[in-house]
């Protein structure tokens, strides 16, 4: 719900008539009128504090006759304007009717000069070695408004820490800090992780972290974007490059379904033989998706792109070895293997792949009569396509009158930027309801916390459908949801597998249908998917089957795996993937599955090529090439085309845009879309880009497109009706359930040395009392018996874990497709083994 429009207020700034809605601050009104008032501590997304004093202006207000309450007018009939004796901070003063602001008078310019001179008396002026140099608000504004000479005649400016780690990701240079407090307010106002603060006072006032580990927040990198000096720098970029040396390429984050817009900054790097390297990732403004922010996984998890273990040429099996081969040799081998298989071929595709890749691979395999399946244990993409949030949805519009239901999802861990947006919605008055078997951070913002047993989320959502007949403890939540003007359900896979999420998605669909929250903007269903393009895969008809791979493989004579590593997930699948007799793997790395392949084809990461992802909000967004291809690697769509042509198919795609055009013609929801439409940019507030660094930070301006949201089928008139929901979670004394943690040990993160300290050991999480009962010792090893296999994991205890349940983080423990009965070996044997290990 957009905020109610407030009446416009009319004022004059530097002689220019300006009208802005009531409540706006002078500094914003000026910016909108194209008048720059320099700032350091002010930021449009943070609470104003007026502490740096840089934005001082002269403010005049119409004089009011106390007796009559009327404005005093002069001889010309103009209002008499009274200016106060002091300059005032334009970042804390709201506009008022008839106000006259002087933002560039002699007095104001002198004040800016004075403030800058003060700031520089304790600033090291080490610009030549400062990472911020070139994009530094202090540097830029000193050039524009500050003194050219120093009158500070003392050599002892400040002697403070130059390399103070605030945790592993962010470094603080205490000398450069100008105490604006933006970072602290970001952590408090936006991230809701108040883990840094001011320490000491006066010139000793410093930023300090008080969490363990230091600066424990998934959003810490954003503070470096809004730091107006080089005080906060990221561990990956510090002393890495100068801003002006780098090339900027627009991209979309490949880690989760939010689809944050980013830029990749690249430079040719002497240390790697002149290769183009990604030096840093910055947010790219998209108010519809990620605003000015990205999470630390998106910012720091890029090292895999140019990692030395990347596959750079095709490999072909010779006996029990994989040998380097040319593309011609490899394609010939693929042709030889696929030809005899005929229609007995299965494509197992991953949801990391772009829409173009998935479409091309699906065409390749289905054209031969084979089938494709998505390597995923989460269902419901058919229902998000049917009842997904309507066109025009913007989570930033949710507020009073809206409801957000978070069902079986740990949103902060799974889709961090959605957590920020849900939190902002709650602060604006939206009713947040959480339904989960365990406590998560989202409970903080929830008006209604519905705590359920493991696997009960579908049943619980069914109970919410009818407020009149809901169980007593759910009635308030049910009513709040039903009565909301706008309502969105986020459903995840916290503790659920394919069947569970299928039931949950259906229950959520039923709830939305019954309460008529679908088919329009800001209403509908959002899947908190495991990967960046899960929704795209579903839309293109690449879906998980819910059946074990061993069943799917029956009768097949070839298996084609792209963007997936089933054997890496479950080593027991090694014989299964070999069973069809011919295995092709297309991947970035020599995965466990690839090691077993007959042919391994080197694919390209998102950073080397063009493509599109479809976000969980079903926004189709383009990403662009940032670095040249690694070795002879090729994009998946292109490889598919070349194989198709080798097999005699007519797959004449020469460019990714052509593939997209074919896709748009084939998939109804994507009809009418093309690359030009996806690249359409729009004006956004606050303005970003180099001239706005002091105002908005270094988040990049979005000139490359905000993407296009595709309509849900319900909007297109497809009829909807509730369906029966049936799901029963396994019952056992001990049940293991899969959960998702942002920092996992998946391929994409394992190669990041920056994030390495944050990656957890392979672990099992259980309630401290359960651990005690089982004799499991926190941070020691224990052995789990799961599906007859023994696995050794590190024990972690957490009071938020339900009793009788063991949490297994996905990609950071053992692969668990769904809730499964489990035993923990507590015998001394496990302890002894642990002791031996030490």
């Amino acid at each position: 719900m957009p905020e109610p429009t407030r009446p416009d207020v009319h004022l004059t700034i530097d002689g220019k008539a300006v009208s802005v809605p009531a409540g706006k601050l002078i500094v914003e009104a000026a910016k909108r009128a194209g008048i720059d008032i320099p700032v350091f501590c002010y930021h449009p997304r943070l609470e104003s504090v007026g502490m740096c004093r840089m934005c001082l202006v002269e403010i005049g207000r119409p004089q009011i006759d106390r007796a009559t309450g009327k404005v005093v007018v002069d001889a010309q009939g103009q209002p008499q304007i009274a200016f106060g004796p002091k300059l005032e901070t334009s970042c804390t003063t709201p506009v008022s009717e008839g106000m006259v602001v002087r933002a560039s008078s002699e007095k104001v310019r002198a004040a800016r000069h004075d403030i800058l001179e003060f700031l520089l008396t304790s600033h090291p002026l080490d610009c030549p070695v400062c990472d911020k140099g070139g994009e530094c608000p202090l540097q830029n504004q000193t050039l524009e408004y500050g003194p050219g000479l120093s009158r500070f005649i003392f050599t002892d400016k400040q002697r403070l820490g130059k390399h103070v780690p605030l945790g592993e990701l962010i470094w603080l240079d205490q000398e450069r800090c100008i105490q604006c407090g933006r970072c602290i307010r970001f952590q408090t106002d936006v991230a809701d992780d108040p883990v840094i603060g001011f320490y000491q006072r006066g010139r000793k006032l410093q930023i300090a972290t008080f969490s363990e580990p230091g600066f424990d927040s998934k959003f810490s990198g954003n503070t470096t974007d809004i730091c107006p000096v080089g005080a906060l720098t990221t561990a990956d970029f510090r002393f890495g490059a100068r801003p002006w040396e780098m090339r900027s390429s627009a991209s979309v984050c490949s880690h989760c379904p939010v689809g944050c817009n980013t830029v990749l900054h690249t430079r040719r790097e002497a240390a790697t033989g002149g290769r183009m390297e990604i030096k840093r990732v910055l947010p790219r403004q998209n108010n519809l998706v990620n605003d000015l922010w990205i999470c630390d996984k998106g910012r720091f998890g890029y090292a895999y792109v140019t990692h030395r273990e990347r596959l750079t040429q095709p490999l072909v099996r010779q006996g029990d070895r994989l040998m380097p081969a040319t593309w011609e040799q490899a394609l010939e081998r693929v042709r030889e293997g696929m030809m005899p298989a005929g229609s007995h071929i299965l494509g197992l595709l991953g949801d990391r792949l772009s829409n173009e890749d998935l479409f091309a691979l699906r065409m390749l395999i289905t054209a031969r009569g084979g089938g494709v399946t998505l390597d995923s244990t989460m269902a419901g993409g058919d229902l998000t396509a049917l009842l997904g949030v309507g066109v025009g949805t913007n989570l930033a519009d949710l507020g009073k009158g809206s409801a957000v239901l978070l069902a079986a999802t740990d949103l902060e861990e799974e889709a961090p930027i959605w957590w920020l947006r849900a939190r902002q919605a709650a602060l604006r008055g939206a009713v947040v309801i959480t339904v989960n078997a365990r406590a998560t951070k989202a409970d903080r913002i929830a008006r209604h916390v519905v705590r359920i047993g493991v696997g009960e989320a579908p049943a619980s959502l069914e109970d919410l459908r009818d407020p009149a007949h809901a169980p007593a403890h759910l009635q308030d939540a049910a009513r709040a949801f039903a009565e909301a003007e706008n309502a969105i359900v986020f459903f995840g896979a916290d503790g659920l597998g394919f069947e569970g999420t299928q039931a949950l998605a259906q229950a959520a669909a039923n709830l939305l249908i019954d309460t008529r929250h679908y088919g329009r903007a800001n209403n509908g269903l959002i899947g908190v998917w495991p990967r960046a393009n899960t929704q795209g895969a579903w839309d293109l008809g690449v879906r998980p089957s819910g059946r074990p791979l061993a069943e799917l493989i029956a009768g097949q004579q070839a298996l084609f795996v792209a963007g997936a590593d089933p054997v890496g997930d479950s080593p027991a699948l090694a014989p299964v993937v070999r069973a069809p007799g011919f295995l092709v793997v297309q991947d970035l790395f020599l995965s466990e599955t690839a090691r077993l392949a007959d042919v391994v084809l080197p694919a390209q990461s998102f950073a080397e090529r063009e493509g599109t992802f479809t976000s969980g909000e079903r926004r189709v967004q383009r990403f662009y090439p940032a670095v040249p291809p690694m070795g002879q690697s090729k994009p998946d769509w292109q490889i598919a085309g070349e194989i198709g042509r080798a097999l005699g198919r007519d797959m004449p795609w020469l460019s990714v845009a052509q593939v997209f055009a074919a896709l748009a013609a084939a998939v109804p929801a994507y009809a009418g879309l093309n690359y030009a439409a996806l690249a359409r940019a729009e004006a956004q507030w606050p303005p970003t880009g180099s001239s706005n660094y002091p105002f908005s930070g270094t988040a990049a301006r979005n000139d490359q497109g905000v993407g296009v949201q595709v309509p849900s089928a319900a909007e297109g008139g497809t009829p909807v009706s509730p369906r029966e929901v049936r799901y029963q979670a396994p019952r056992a004394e001990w049940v293991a359930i899969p959960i998702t943690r942002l920092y996992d040990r998946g391929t994409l993160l394992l190669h990041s040395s920056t994030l390495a300290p944050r990656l957890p050991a392979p672990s099992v999480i259980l309630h401290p009392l359960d651990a005690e009962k089982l004799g499991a010792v926190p941070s020691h090893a224990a052995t789990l018996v799961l599906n007859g296999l023994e696995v050794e994991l590190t024990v972690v205890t957490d009071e938020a874990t339900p009793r009788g349940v063991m949490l297994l983080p996905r990609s950071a423990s053992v692969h668990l497709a769904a809730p499964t009965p489990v035993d923990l070996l507590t015998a001394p044997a496990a302890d002894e083994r642990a002791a031996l290990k030490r």
Partner: protein
Amino acid sequence: MSEHILLRHRDVADIDKLEVYLAHGGFEALRKALTAQTPAQVLEEVKASGLRGRGGAGFPTGVKWSFLPKDVFPRYLVVNADESEPGTFKDRELMERNPFQFLEGIALAAYAAQAERAYIYCRGEFWDLARDLDRHIAQMGDAGWLGARLQGSTFSLEIYTHLGAGAYICGEETALLESLEGKIGQPRIRPPFPATYGLFGKPTVINNVETLTNLPPIIARGAAWYRTIGTPKSSGPKVFSLSGHVNRPGNYELPLGTTFRTLIYDLGGGLPGGRKPKAIMPAGASSTLLRATEAVLDMPMDYESVAAAGSMLGSASVIVLDETVDMSWLALKTSRFFKHESCGKCTPCREGTYWMLRLLEHIQSGEATAEDVHLLGQVAGQIQNKCLCPLGEFAIGPVQSSLALFAEDFQLHISQPSPRAAAVVSEHA
């Protein structure tokens, strides 16, 4: 004065004992208010008395209370007992020696403001005093003057003490609120003012200890009686803290409008060795200096008169400086204090106080040039009117006025090294 209204312990022995206080009319004002007056009537009585805030700003107390928004609850009363201004030591004596009158004043103010919770924010060094206050508060509660439904009225009240952690800035009311909320002591931008957005974001009245101690006599004896003391615009008694070069330093309770001469010579016993006063700081370390001329000595100590002379009465902490004092050294002393106490939140105060201190040290060392003295004045001017809170403005008062009134004390160091140069210890760390 024939009778002490505030420093009543000087007339009545053991008035810090509850039974003694009760035997001398203690809590009669509160009883009167609770049983015979509405909160609005108490407020009107205080307005009519002309009582002005004794913490330094001199804002009319009743008017301040009337800024509370209607029908917004809960409200809080916060007592500013962070007495930290160098030269000020009146609140300590009031709270230590005449505690029940102070506490009764809190109850009256809380009743008028309809605040059911009051916090006494004491500077950290007042830990022993706070402990005694806790004991007195407990006794007051045991006697039925705190708790639920006081004296059968609908009004309830609890009083708590809270200790600061040793920062001068926490005497600034919004920094005090931050500190009381458990945050770092830094001032808030105003507006919003505490009356509308105060402690925990709720309407809050903040009053000084001495201000509140004035309330029981006002309610007990009436506004008309109160106005017979002092001047028409500065009514009532005031405790003057006298220090510096005087023979008998200490607290003196006098009607507002008493002259400096009466305080310094008649009560303070004049200057040691019969020396002549050179300057007076009427409001502690943050004062704009007054040259101690005959006219100034005969000036009445009330808010208007001192302001008209270009300084301010503030908390009435009169520091006398005799003819031996080098005013550039004085500026160094005050600057060192304010640099040490600057909270660092706003740029001009954080950086400017340091720069001033360095220049003053340089001047004292005898190595400075006339240009440095000129620069000192410019730096002070650069701070002026740009700060977030009054601390930065306080810091420049003694510097600007000593430069303006005693330029010769600065010139002196330009040609020859200061005799004190060796003693100047730089503490900029």
